[in-house]
């Protein structure tokens, strides 16, 4: 069994108190929500915060506010998100993405905020300390070189969050609160394409809520590829959200890819669809465009060329589903989810 390193544990009772601790402790402190990502990482000594600041007893982080749009507290567990009728009715992609994270047990612990801040992943990084020492530490943690691309100046670890692509497609924002103040940014702006510094969130900021705009007239979906349908991190996620006119003309479309880069990618494929119908040709063109944006590397499961190859098939599945084709058999076969 792998054991946790020693750490100090704080359980603040308010966002302000938590922010205050973060400000005081600096980079040595980390927030912990469900702990399903952070604790395994700590056991493997990938992350070794001296202080853990728990969000469990902070009130308000599980609030759901249904007004114009929907605001979800970052402390909601993924299963709580899945079970909210307001999410399923108006933001299907989020419902589907949250419902495919890990396994039922982990979704009972893991939170929406934790999922958005999920550490990036890499075969050379998600190993215990001895393993990493044996081949020499890599750039993401304690080392100098990237073992995936030795000439790379940056870490290329993979963004593996399922909900982020969905939330970007849905045009959501996040609220970040620190002792110095608070700000709201688009989920798309929460990420940057660097496997080590993958978030634009400052270390002293707490992600408190996710707000979704009113999406009347939109349809959305999330398709996830992984080796086993039961539980695995994504090796590709495709989130699509489309608003169409009554005659089927696409007014707005966003197609976002997950797990093929160090950040979720809002592709240009959506723009390509605007003004036209969701014809087979248009869908194929969008698939091609999206594929060119995918940059998978040899640091996760299965062959990287294949992972790029299947992007267009997955974009096709997603768009045809939005068009109204019955994709339930394919969906069930690939994802065990309707």
């Amino acid at each position, binding site marked *: 069994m792998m054991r946790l390193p020693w750490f100090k544990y704080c359980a603040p009772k308010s966002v302000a108190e938590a922010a205050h601790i973060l400000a005081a402790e600096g980079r040595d402190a980390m927030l912990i929500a469900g702990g399903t990502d952070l604790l395994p990482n700590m056991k493997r000594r990938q992350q070794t915060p001296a202080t853990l600041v728990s969000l469990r007893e902070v009130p308000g982080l599980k609030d759901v506010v249904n007004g114009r749009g929907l605001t979800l507290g970052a402390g909601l567990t993924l299963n709580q998100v899945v079970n909210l009728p307001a999410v399923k009715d108006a933001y299907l992609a989020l419902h589907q993405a949250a419902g495919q994270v890990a396994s039922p047990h982990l979704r009972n612990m893991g939170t929406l905020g934790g999922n958005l801040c999920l550490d990036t992943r890499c075969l050379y990084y998600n190993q215990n300390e*001895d393993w990493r020492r*044996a*081949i020499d530490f890599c750039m993401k943690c304690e080392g100098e070189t990237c073992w995936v691309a030795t000439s790379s100046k940056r870490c290329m670890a993979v963004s593996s969050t399922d909900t982020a692509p969905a939330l970007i497609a849905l045009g959501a924002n996040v609220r970040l609160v620190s002792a110095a103040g608070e700000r709201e940014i688009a989920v798309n702006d929460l990420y940057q394409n660097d496997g080590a510094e993958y978030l634009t969130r400052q270390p002293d900021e707490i992600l408190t809520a996710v707000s979704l705009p009113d999406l009347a007239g939109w349809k959305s979906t999330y398709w996830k590829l992984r080796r086993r349908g039961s539980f*695995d991190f994504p090796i590709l996620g495709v989130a699509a959200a489309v608003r169409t006119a009554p005659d089927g003309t696409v007014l707005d479309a966003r197609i976002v890819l997950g797990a093929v880069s160090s950040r979720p990618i809002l592709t240009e494929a959506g723009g390509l669809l605007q003004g036209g119908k969701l014809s087979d040709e248009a869908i194929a063109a969008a698939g091609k465009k999206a594929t060119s944006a995918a940059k998978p590397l040899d640091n996760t499961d299965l062959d990287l060329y*294949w*992972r790029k190859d299947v992007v267009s098939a997955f974009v096709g599945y997603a768009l045809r589903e939005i068009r109204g084709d019955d994709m339930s058999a394919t969906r069930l076969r690939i994802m065990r989810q309707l």
Partner: protein
Amino acid sequence: MIVASGLKYQARELKIVGTRPLRPDGVDKVTGRARYGADISLPGQLIGKVLRSPHAHARIKSIDTSAAAALPGVKAVISRDDFADMAEEYAAAGELTINFRDVTRNMMAREKVLYDGHPVAAVAATSEAIARAALKLIKVDYEILPHVIDVIAALRPDAPLLHEEQYTEGVNPRPARPSNLAKRLEFARGNVEAGFAAADTIVEREFTTKPVHQGYIEPQACLASYSEDGQAELWTSTQGHFVFRAQCAKLLQMEISKIRVTPTEIGGGFGGKNNIYNEPLAIALSRKSHRPVKMVMTREEVFRATGPTSGGHVKVRLGATRDGRITAATAELSFQAGAFPGSSVAPASMCAFTRYDLENVRVIGNDVTVNRPKVAAYRAPGAPIAAFAVESAIDEMAKKLGIAPIEFRLINAAREGTQTYYGPKLGKIGYIETLEAARAHPHYRAPLGPGHGRGIATGFWFNIGNETTAALNINEDGTATLIMGTIDVAGGSRAAMAMMVAEELGIPFDRVRPHIGDTSSLGFNFITAGSRGTFAGGMACVVAARDAIEKLRDRVARIREVPLEAVLWKDGHAVPAEGSARQFAPMSLAEIAGQAGKTGGPIAGHAELNVQGAGPGFGAHIVDVEVDRQTGSIKILRYTAVQDVGRAIHPAYVEGQLQGGVVQGIGWALNEEYVYDADGILANPGFLDYRIPVASDLPFIDTVIVEVANPNHPYGVRGCGEVPIIAPLAAIANAVENALGIRFYDLPMAPPKVLQAIDEAAAAASKA
């Protein structure tokens, strides 16, 4: 009653055998009370940890443990210097053979480290944290050597050499140079050249499989306590406590009587717990520290250093006449043995074609050392690899000849009296019955959806018997306590044994309480391997029960003052023999037991056997798959496993064995593989990245139990645990071929490989 090797089959009416009672170990398991290896502790125990090689191949120039030994809390440090070197000496361990010279080197590296994860030193400390800190203080000076991982690469003349003194065994004359080819075996019968000349059609193919791990849920765990008078006690999760005792005694140069091994509840083994790993280290650490020492492996250690099965490369050639008769068959199997010789290539070679009645056969087996952990047995060791190749080739041949796959197998099927190419003639077997049951199953005829494919394949395994003991104590209240020496590897053999004993004694199942005895309470028992548990263990239990019954009858004859022949045993009672002049009031088991003290003392039955006459098992599997042409991923839609088990004592647990074997076979076929990086370091030593199928990845696996009784067992048992893992690999490959028109020769059939093949086939078709 003296029985040398066992009792013969007798058909009779049965009350308990064939029913489905709850297993005696069930409640403790579902309530979390069952004690597995890591649950056993002693006051004052230390925690032992192993320092493992970070290199795939290196010479150990020096090991300096002084800083670790000086760390407060560290009570003992051991390395190669704490163990005697061993000469070459072979012993059986399950279905594979071990050599003590290698076992001692695998347990603790001596001259070289031969794989990533090879133990180099071990410490015992007052806490795990201190033990880990101590490992970091051990300085090992390595000279890194080039390594070789792949079996074909290892056979090249310029390949890095693992053992400088290894000259291929089994070739004549002895080779001039050492190599990684440890052993070459050959089995032959008839004249294959003539056989191929007589063939109308020939199929010749090459196949590869990847090493896969047994994937038991419970990592190896043990606790050792060595006392000042030179006795050692060991608790461990094992498939064979007597064999572990023998190996520990040898490696630690102790007398066998001075070691007592108590087996814990075992969380799966599948052959992977046939071998000692930490056990001798724990005893040595306890001897040095004068404290009990507990050692529990992490999952990563399990993957890096305990036996996977071999990866294999198999060449097959088949010749057949137009009317479907196989005229000749040859195969060459090259198996990765891991760091030390002794892969499952021998049983695999013997199994390769032994489903067919063949005149002309030649099989060559190569045992090849590579820089990977030493392989261990895994359910029908080697047979799935051989069957993947042969059953794929058989399928291709059937297709070429235009004969349905089951018909083609029936034409050539092995039957009672078939001469094997490795020695014996087959006794009574149920291969034909199994094939016929598969053909009659609705699944075989069910319509297939568009793009779906169906595949068939079959498997054969010997099954074994060997040394087995049991003791049955009749308690004062007429209940019985059964002490058995074969481990219940969680398959439910305790239930099966208690059922046979209850059947014999004529008392309810829950009046018999089975326990696994420690090594000091019974005579030697071989490992629970080779599907011998219910066959050999059951034989011993039946013999012990009949021995007890004889004593019960004798007691009644004396109480009632009648001759022994006048007393019969029926439905739990001593009754007067029908028609006998000496009638008396029947006595129940409880009545006899209640007076036992006054009538001659306690009553018990015993069995000490070397059980012979295991009945080979055959399976036929039908599987439907669907392939996603856009991603190449394969989904198993429906699966039916048909198997001759001789007799299912407890049908539900037999079905569980069949289903479990199929699941592991599906993982082998589709997902599982060891991924090594360029330096020979295992990159996926955990269940998140080493992907075994979980429940929701699978359809319900339907089972059909065929019962062609084994004549050499009182209830007809053959053994059933291994056969079901043999056929799935080929059955799935055959189904995929039927779905796509593309045959896969390499496992696993991962989506990228499948998609690439689909795209290539489409490109070739559009060119044509």
